[in-house]
């Protein structure tokens, strides 16, 4: 019986030792060559500023120190505020004096934030989708909507917010009220400027024109 116990103990130790070692083939999928990187730079008043692990720089001058590199950043020229997104926290910085003016935790994980004309929109990176819209001058008051599908990308301009999911594209007003929707197949990215909107999905690139707060014309782009 003593021999069996010793054998079991040794096996347990060997197992423990094996678990400590991480094999080089246990990490990310080989078939996924595109990886997620944190924000590496931001554009503030048309000037590109590098973001390194310890801060935001202009040439070699530290403008704003950072403890972590943000997942995504967006600058709003109207309010002169830079939005920094850290997964489960959002931070606003006044670029006139590079001081933090707002910081708050998020009830969901988010890696995308975009801002325009005094408002910022951020979407959850998990399913089901959640979208929050912030008034950058009064960030304490925000509007949040949950959807029953995952959100992959979004746009915001002075008239609309568009939300792209795997199967749906929503055209909303700046209060997140849905104005129109269309079906997409595996939505990946969206871009909008005025009445022109492009959607990239698994079937390719599509152009939509927007008229009267509605998707008007659809055209495949080759």
């Amino acid at each position, binding site marked *: 019986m003593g021999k069996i116990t010793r054998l079991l103990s040794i096996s347990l130790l060997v197992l423990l030792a094996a678990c400590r070692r991480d094999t080089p083939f246990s990490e990310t999928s080989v078939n996924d060559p595109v990886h997620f990187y944190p924000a590496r730079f931001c*554009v503030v008043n048309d000037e*590109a500023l590098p973001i390194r692990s310890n801060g935001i720089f202009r040439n070699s001058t530290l403008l704003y120190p950072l403890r972590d590199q943000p997942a995504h950043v967006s600058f709003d020229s109207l309010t002169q505020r830079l939005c920094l997104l850290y997964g489960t926290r959002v931070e606003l910085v006044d670029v006139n004096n590079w001081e933090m003016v707002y910081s708050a935790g998020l009830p969901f994980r988010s890696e995308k934030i975009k801002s325009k004309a005094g408002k910022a929109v951020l979407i959850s990176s998990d399913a089901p989708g959640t979208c929050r819209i912030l008034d950058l001058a009064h960030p304490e008051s925000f509007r949040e909507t949950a959807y029953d599908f995952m959100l992959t990308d979004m746009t915001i301009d002075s008239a609309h917010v568009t939300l792209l999911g795997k199967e749906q594209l929503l055209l909303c007003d700046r209060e997140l009220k849905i104005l129109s929707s269309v079906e997409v197949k595996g939505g990946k990215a969206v871009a*909008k400027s005025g009445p022109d909107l492009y959607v990239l999905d698994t079937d390719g690139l599509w152009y939509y024109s927007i008229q009267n707060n509605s998707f008007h014309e659809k055209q495949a782009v080759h």
Partner: protein
Amino acid sequence: MVAVSKSSTPRNKPLLLYFENEYFRLMRNRGLSSLLLATLLVVSCAKVSDYDQYSAYYPDLMEHKYLREFPFIGFPRNSTHETQMELVNGVLYIMDAYDGIHALRNTDKRKVYFLIAPGCTQMTPYSSGIVSDRTVDLITFGKKGNQTVDFVGQQLDVLDELAPPDGKEIPPIFQRQNRQKNTEIIRWEK
């Protein structure tokens, strides 16, 4: 009368109880239990292996002369890894991760150029175009003179190196001081 041994076998006790008994019996043996504890300590405090410390990915490197001296704008090409789109001043910019950016004219919905930016991962719009990373550099494309899309400018060596995607350290052989001179990491592969 049948003699009953002190320690029961799995045949007449639940397996878990049996191991529990065996464990406590083993622990009564001071020498063996100390040895076990010492071994467990050594295993748990052992120096992290190279596999733990360094990335299992390997980098694609590009020489500075190819990265920074060759033309920055090429002919349209097929997309491979589109990750982001921006529509600025009638031009749709589509990021093709690690390779460059497709420029498509909104008026006729045609790809007109491929903006070459090896090692690109992110682009951000500005008033007349986009700024993109190119490994450790920042590069700007947009309206310049009469051209709707052109190379506007670049800032060299302003960003950190592209880190391995598993968050681990760059293996020593690929660290800047050890690898071929005048090269930059443009992507990581397995």
